[in-house]
């Protein structure tokens, strides 16, 4: 919503300056988007008169003119190329050093074909006032007495343009008067009385008959439609003051009749429409559109309508869309002599729906979809008639009205104490009443309660809370006293749930392993989603911003792998990234699940990436990500050695170098492994990449243990270590060897570690490999003697053989 300061002052009697008005508009909820002073860039330009014009001695198309730039000063010599430059012309002068906005130059003193020019006589284009560049500006005689004055002042161009970003609840402020009313209530001046209208109601009946033809259920589309004909008008350009106002707020003047409707729309938030009555065929009808109907809009485009839209039609068919746009065919032109003025009320919801469907964004829609004042339909018609009579002359008919203004009187029971209860602001009853009344509310007070009647232009006010807002925003939010929220406990208590704590812990654990946290889009391409087990239609966006971001992700790896590629394209090939976020199995709330996933590409291992003198740079393997998973689970209170490792990771993992970690058959804790080469190829990721996914929602809850630790059980007896090397089949899992060895004597065997795996040489030829383990025995009560150590060793050897077929290596 744009208006100028002088326009505002038509309605607001104020001595406040623009800065004060701006601050107040912001404070009361009418956010100022911009304030532009078009005069600011014209500061140096002055009114001047050409006293004498002579042909340039060295150029045919140039003249040398003597310019009076100030009364009583000797004239300045100026070179001018404009054909209309002549003695006596009053125009706009720019002295040397002036920046000319239209041509983006600063005037310098330099000869033009041998004659020094001491400034410039300007065209409208040079001042960016219009496109007119054929000649210099010719001012009318009223400027003759203003020689030497700043041009912007003399021409009234120093009127600041204020743009306010209206919230959707304020239809009343789509008119300048509504804004003035708010400012007056807020102490910025006095709202001027409504202008007095001349006699607008004619004697003859309106020759155009108006019909509302809606089915009952759509009657609200246009509950009232009023009109009046004015005969014998003289249309044509509207007066300069009106054109200037419209231009100042960005509207193009059309002709006097149309300009009047636009002016009232901006001035009062009351959209109107004018028809050339001679072009109307039969009655004018407001009705629903019919499929297949079309009309040529004022925007010069053809628009199809449908049976949900409110159209204004005559016997020839639809003329325009009610509340949105009129039609070209029935519109007024300079030749129009008989005008039919429309003032109607169109339903906000239907207007908004139609506006969205058609994509038409117009000043009328802006107002109707917010809800114009239903009690100002006839008032608006009269105002328009009055203005047309004043500007275009003519003879009005009686008004014709179909339907009734949909005015509903809302009275709200309002306990003034509610203001303090809801906002903490303490105001006197008198202040409250004054504020509400100055906004147009009517107050009927009795002892305990007030009944507050809402003005017809405030469809947004429905209840006591709304009234509290009205009072407090006008009183000033700075009066809301900051009040400490009572503390619940002396010392803050922990607020995070166990799950939230785990997510936090997992995030920092993974980062501590050298992985960098990324946040990637929740939506990916459909192909990627499908590749990673998703891609169901239910998770496709109906209106994605692009096909790259169109399907909800079934997991986090697609986003991370794409990030790997992007980093590689920027020259970073050793990339370790993780993300902790949600993925989607379906569209129900319980289908959303929390994953901690990571990727390691190139040599980005936890021990360090890239080549280093202290160690070889080896490509990442499944074991790097297995370590990530096991470390994460351990940090989250899960003992990963109690979980089962199964070789059935999903299809995007390398079938031989990946695993799933489970607790029982149903609970999947994690997947890890190298990413399947085919998957990498499809995504155009360069190998090698290892990845993991930990399903944080699947982790069993942490057992609540007593905070006191169990007593330390540290034996004074020295532990004994023994090494064993087993030759096993090449497919035997090391885990099975460890499990068998560890179970040989659960009370004595403290740990079993694998310190060597050898798969080469002669063993390979036999389809075998060697696994060497170190077993640590921790005696509890007495030192182990050779015989007892030997007997345990024998049991380890035989148990491992039983479990895996492995033979002790001789």
């Amino acid at each position: 919503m744009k208006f100028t300061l002088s326009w505002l002052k038509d309605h607001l009697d104020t001595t406040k300056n623009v800065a004060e008005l701006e601050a107040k508009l912001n404070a009361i909820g009418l956010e100022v988007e911009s304030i532009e002073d078009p005069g600011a860039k014209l500061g140096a330009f002055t009114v001047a008169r050409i006293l004498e014009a002579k042909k340039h001695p060295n150029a045919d198309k140039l003249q040398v003119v003597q310019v009076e730039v100030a009364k009583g000063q000797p004239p300045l010599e100026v070179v001018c190329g404009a054909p209309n430059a002549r003695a006596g012309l009053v125009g706009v002068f720019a002295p040397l050093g002036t920046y000319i906005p239209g041509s983006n130059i600063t005037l310098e003193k330099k000869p033009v074909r041998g004659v020094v020019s001491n400034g410039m006589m300007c065209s409208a284009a040079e001042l960016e006032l219009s496109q007119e560049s054929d000649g210099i500006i010719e001012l009318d005689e009223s400027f003759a007495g203003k020689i030497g004055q700043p041009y912007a002042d003399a021409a009234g161009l120093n009127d600041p343009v204020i743009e306010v970003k209206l919230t959707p609840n304020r239809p009343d402020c789509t008119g300048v008067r509504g804004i003035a009313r708010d400012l007056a209530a807020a102490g910025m001046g006095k709202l001027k009385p409504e202008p007095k209208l001349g006699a607008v109601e004619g004697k003859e009946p309106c020759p155009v008959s108006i019909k509302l033809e809606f089915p009952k259920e759509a009657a609200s589309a246009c509950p009232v439609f009023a009109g009046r004909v004015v005969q014998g008008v003289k249309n044509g350009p509207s007066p300069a003051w009106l054109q200037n106002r419209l231009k100042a707020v960005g509207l193009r003047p059309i002709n006097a009749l149309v300009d009047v409707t636009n002016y009232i729309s901006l001035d009062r938030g009351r959209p109107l429409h004018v028809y050339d009555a001679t072009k109307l065929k039969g009655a004018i009808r407001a009705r629903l559109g019919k499929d297949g109907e079309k009309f040529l809009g004022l925007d010069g485009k053809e628009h199809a309508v449908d049976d949900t839209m409110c159209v204004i039609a005559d016997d020839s068919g639809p003329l325009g869309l009610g509340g949105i746009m009129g039609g070209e065919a029935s519109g007024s032109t300079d030749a129009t002599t008989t005008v039919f003025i429309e003032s109607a009320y169109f339903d906000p919801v239907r207007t908004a729906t139609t506006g969205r469907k058609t994509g038409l964004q117009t000043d009328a829609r802006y107002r109707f979809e917010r809800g114009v004042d239903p009690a100002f339909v006839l008032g608006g018609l009269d105002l328009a008639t009055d203005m047309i009579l004043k500007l275009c002359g003519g003879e009005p008919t009686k008004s014709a009205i179909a339907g009734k203004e949909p005015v509903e009187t809302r009275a709200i029971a309002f306990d003034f104490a509610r203001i303090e209860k809801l906002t903490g602001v303490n105001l006197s009853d008198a202040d409250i009443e004054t504020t509400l009344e100055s906004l147009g509310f009517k107050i009927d007070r009795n002892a305990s309660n007030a009944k507050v009647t809402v003005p017809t232009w405030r469809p947004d006010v429905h209840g006591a809370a709304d009234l509290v807002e009205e009072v407090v925003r006008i009183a000033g939010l700075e009066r809301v006293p900051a009040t400490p929220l009572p503390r619940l406990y002396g010392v803050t208590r922990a607020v995070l749930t166990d799950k939230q704590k785990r997510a936090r812990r997992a995030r920092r654990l993974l980062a501590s392993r050298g992985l960098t946290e990324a946040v990637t889009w929740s939506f990916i391409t459909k192909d990627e989603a499908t590749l990673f087990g998703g891609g169901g239609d239910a998770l496709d966006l109906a209106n994605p911003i692009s096909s790259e971001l169109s399907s909800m992700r079934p997991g986090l790896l697609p986003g991370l792998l794409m990030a790997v590629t992007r980093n590689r394209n920027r020259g970073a090939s050793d990339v370790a990234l993780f993300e902790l976020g949600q993925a989607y199995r379906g569209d129900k709330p319980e289908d959303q699940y929390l994953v901690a996933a990571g990727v390691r590409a190139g040599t980005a291992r936890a021990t360090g990436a890239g080549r280093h003198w202290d160690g070889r740079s080896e490509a990442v393997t499944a074991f790097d990500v297995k370590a990530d998973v096991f470390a994460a689970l351990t940090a989250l209170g899960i003992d990963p050695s109690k979980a089962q490792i199964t070789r059935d990771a999903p299809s995007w993992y390398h079938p031989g170098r990946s695993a799933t970690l489970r607790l029982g058959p149903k609970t999947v804790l994690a997947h890890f492994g190298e990413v399947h080469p085919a998957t990498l190829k499809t995504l155009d990721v360069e190998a090698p990449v290892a990845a993991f996914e930990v399903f944080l929602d699947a982790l069993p809850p942490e057992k609540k243990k007593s905070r006191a630790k169990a007593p330390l059980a540290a034996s004074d007896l020295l532990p004994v270590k023994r090494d064993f090397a087993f030759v096993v089949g090449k497919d035997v899992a090391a885990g099975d060897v460890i499990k068998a060895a560890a179970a040989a004597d659960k009370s004595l065997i403290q740990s079993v570690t694998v310190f060597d795996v050898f798969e080469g040489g002669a063993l390979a030829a036999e389809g075998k490999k060697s696994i060497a383990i170190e077993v640590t025995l921790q005696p509890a009560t007495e030192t182990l003697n050779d015989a007892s150590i030997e007997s345990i060793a024998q049991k380890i050897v035989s148990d491992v053989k039983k479990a895996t077929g492995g033979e002790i290596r001789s």
Partner: protein
Amino acid sequence: MTSSNDLSKLEADLLSEIAGAADLSAIEAVRVSALGKKGRVSELMSRLGSLPPEERKGFGQTVNTLKSKVADALDARKAVLEDAALDARLKTERADVTLPVRLGAELEGRIHPVSQVLDEVIEIFADMGFAVAEGPDIETDAMNFDKLNIPAEHPARQDHDTFYFSPKPDGTRLLLRTHTSPVQIRTMSNQKPPIRIIAPGRVYRCDSDQTHTPMFHQIEGLVIDESTHMGHLKWVLQEFCKAFFEVDEVKMRFRASHFPFTEPSMEVDVGAEAIGKPGKWLEILGCGMVHPNVLRNCGLDPEKYQGFAFGVGLDRLAMLKYGIPDLRPFFGGDLRWLRHYGFGVLDVPTLGGGISG
């Protein structure tokens, strides 16, 4: 019989041999030849028994003196030789300490600014008694709009640029939540007041430019009880801003505004002094008293319960506090960006140790 001359000579010989021992093995040889079982000094002692009793004492004392003299000389020489040997070894042992080392994974990894700032915000609100609530990204029209007092054709609904899923056979269609406010509804519908929560999460809008991305993060705040009013809201926001921007004072401007789910509503600007750019206002959040219709929609009696709600952009907070100019790279996974704007593992925000570490 051994003369004192013989003893003197032996002493002189031994001391000279000791002094002449060139290395640790030579000194050991001297020790064995002097003090070993069959050594020359030990041999003298073994003769003690064959001496007449009156000479034994004197002889024994003399030999013992010799023995200790030799032992001392041996020790001293050995120490010298050991020092020399160590010196010689150390001369050969030399590391190039200018070789670079790895700092370790703990310093390599980074926490994303959004996560870090979320941790900061949680820390601050936890101190004011706010728990953390969560809700799904895929929501219904009812949760995202209707129950928040945004009816189907409300113009505000158009401002939201909603991502929709395809309609179901029954005509309903799901959407991606456009704000975290549905968590208000879920919380109030499932929990009796008093309520103090913040609800962080991803939100989605069909929008993309330098300051808008189709996905971003919000934090919702909600307090519901029987007496919390707008003054409490103001205080909470002031305290939050001071704690978050880590300044003693913060200039704040409260402007009346409109949101369908609050009444009265405010928009809040922070004086950019807080981030070292005086003279400007930064729009940071919208808030207000929860609309009676919203309370009613959650089964709460607006005559009894009241409270406030606010919503703030988490990414925006991160940008303001840490001087991050552009929103789009937040979601690009660019390692250069993440390393530069990300946070170390040890930068855990705490109230005692400092919100930004």
